[in-house]
């Protein structure tokens, strides 16, 4: 287990607000499980090694500035558990010292951590796993989710397509687990918003499409029924990026590639986001990704709660974050809050290509009785989560 404790010094004592302020230490841990990345066709866009970790560090820096004025000392202990090493052992060690942990790990590893005796009463943020079950039947009272679920992403895209009147769709899916999960979310979203997936096909990944996609793909898509948009569920970015301009019909691509719904895009610049993008780029020397954003939002949520509550107690922070008073300005146009029935962070979501923002969802006209952001993902009446009752 590699460990890089990072402590950002708080601002000069002279900057502390006048009056007697008790100093409060707020230790936060960031724990990541290294995972094997599936091989993809192109090596041009490697997944950064510090994806997520840099987001947490930026959140820490933002918190520390505010903390300097409040007498709150934030620290971030970030660690990565290498492939094949003892995840739960590392989790126990971290939980022994920290009651607030931001986790960047697959769903099963997250659940195993959350179910440790040491994790009871701790506040855990899921900054990576998109599985619906984590917010539903497998929800845990000690886990909040800053990463949106597959359903939220699919709903965001479908709202955009439906508001463009592009309701006739076809879909190509990859064969990996994540591809199938996102494809299912897209099917559910199409049903929810009245679009039609008129045909589906699974892509066999055995050939190197960089060479022959121009021959294979038109034929592969030739007998698709007429459609407005070609959906692709290819979460690893394997073949999806090569589909555009190579299908039988000249139709835009959306989903995992093309116009992609996500927690974040480096193309967002309104809502003050240009400043966040710049701060991140200065820190990490690369653009901010969705996992970075989710980790940043987790650390900032803690900071916002500590600022308002003047306590570092994990239980108090959790209750405040789930309560009505909490709101976080998070550079997507609307304040961030959390769903009190399953701990999912509500959030607007960008739909963006690699070059430009297409839309910020929820789209105008998709109404909700209490919160427009709850038009994205499973809503309270549908939830199977009971841990938050």
């Amino acid at each position, binding site marked *: 287990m590699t460990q890089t404790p990072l402590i950002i010094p708080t601002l000069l004592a002279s900057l502390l607000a006048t009056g007697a302020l008790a100093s409060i230490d707020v230790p936060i841990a960031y724990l990541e499980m290294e995972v094997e990345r599936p091989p993809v066709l192109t090596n041009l866009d490697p997944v950064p090694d510090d994806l997520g970790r840099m987001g947490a560090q930026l959140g820490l820096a933002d918190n520390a500035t*505010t903390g300097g004025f409040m007498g709150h000392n934030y620290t971030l202990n970030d660690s990565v558990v290498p492939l094949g090493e003892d995840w739960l052992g590392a989790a126990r060690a971290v939980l022994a010292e920290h009651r607030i942990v931001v986790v960047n790990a697959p769903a099963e590893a997250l659940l195993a951590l959350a179910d440790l005796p040491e994790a009871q009463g701790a506040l855990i943020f899921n900054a990576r796993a998109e599985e619906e079950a984590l917010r539903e039947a497998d929800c845990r009272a000690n886990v909040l989710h800053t990463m949106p679920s597959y359903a939220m992403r699919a709903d965001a895209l479908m709202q955009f397509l439906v508001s463009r009147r592009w309701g006739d769709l076809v879909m190509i899916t990859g064969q990996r687990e994540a591809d199938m999960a996102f494809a299912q979310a897209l099917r559910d979203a199409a049903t929810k918003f009245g679009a039609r997936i008129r045909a589906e096909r699974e892509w066999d990944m055995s050939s190197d499409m960089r060479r022959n996609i121009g021959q294979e793909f038109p034929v592969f898509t030739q007998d698709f029924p007429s459609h407005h948009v070609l959906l692709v569920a290819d979460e690893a970015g394997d073949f999806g990026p090569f589909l555009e301009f190579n299908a039988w019909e000249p139709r835009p691509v959306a989903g995992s590639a093309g116009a992609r719904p996500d927690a974040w895009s480096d193309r967002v610049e309104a809502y003050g986001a240009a400043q966040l993008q710049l701060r991140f780029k200065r820190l990490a020397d690369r653009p901010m990704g969705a996992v970075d954003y989710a980790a940043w939002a987790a650390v900032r949520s803690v900071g916002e709660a500590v600022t308002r509550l003047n306590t570092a107690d994990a239980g108090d922070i959790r209750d405040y974050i789930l309560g009505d008073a909490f*709101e976080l*300005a998070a550079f997507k146009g609307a304040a961030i809050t959390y769903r009190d029935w399953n701990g999912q962070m509500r959030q607007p979501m960008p739909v963006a290509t690699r070059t430009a923002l297409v839309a910020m969802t929820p789209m105008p006209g998709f109404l909700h009785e209490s919160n427009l952001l709850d038009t994205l993902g499973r809503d309270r009446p549908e939830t199977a989560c009971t841990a938050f009752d």
Partner: protein
Amino acid sequence: MIRSTVSALALTTLMAMPALAQEVWVSNERDNTISIIDVPTMEVVETIKVGARPRGIMFSHDHKVAYLCASDDSTIQVIDVATREILHNLPSGENPETFALHPDNRHIYISNEDDNITSVLDVVDRVIVAQIPVGVEPEGKAINRAGTIAITTSETTNMAHWINTETFEIFHNSLVGSRPRHAEFTSDDARLFVSAEIGGGLHVFDTETFEELAEIRFEIPDVHPHDVQPVGFKLTEDMSRVYVALGPANRIAVVDAQTYEVLGYHLVGRRVWHMAMSDDETKLFTTNGVSGDVTIIDLVRGEPIKTVKVGRFPWGAAYRPAEG
């Protein structure tokens, strides 16, 4: 060829005229220009090319020059009001967004939004005389009439920092709602108003006790609360009214600055952020970023009277009274 000579002549004649009518100068963030609106005719009479990403704009207290934050050029530009020419660029620190001019007409307090710094600029010696660490993304700036207190609001830290203008030290911090954008003192210096864009409220503080006197909230029929985002505002000299720009709600709120009651709303262009008020307080000029225009509101009749097309993403506005 002939035509351009004639218009150049006409311009020269105009510029030679001693009297200047009232004007509103509008900074266009995505056009790198300033649009000058002639108040009597309510038309854009001139467009000045300026530095990159112009945002904060204001006049010197004698209205002889205009100051402009050219954010992406990291400079404050000084523009001669009579000739419309950029006289020189002043040091500003990195990425200046907004600023306020001290009553001494010499010191400008600048928000350096990417560096968590408030810089203090001496416009006579043309040097930065102090840099004060503040919260994340400093924005709103205000200085009281007595010249003793400067305010910086920090958008991500959610605070108004109270800065002593003699020592350049922060002597108090007030927590406010999310994303504080703008601050202003009442004319008697007794109260401070701070807007919170994402928080959705306008906070009022007592400047002696720092106590929060009120948080003004806005509820507009048929407008979703998400879209009610207070940004810029203006207090009248007699402290009877405060006019508040509500961002994507596309409205200006009219608020009783004594009772804090919201009296009504004016519908303006899209995503209204900042505004300028005429010196007789009969007209308000609002910058509508998304629709790229300025709405002129007649405050006596209590209604918008004209929309004037300006450049892309109008950000700030400053009013210059008649001269000569």
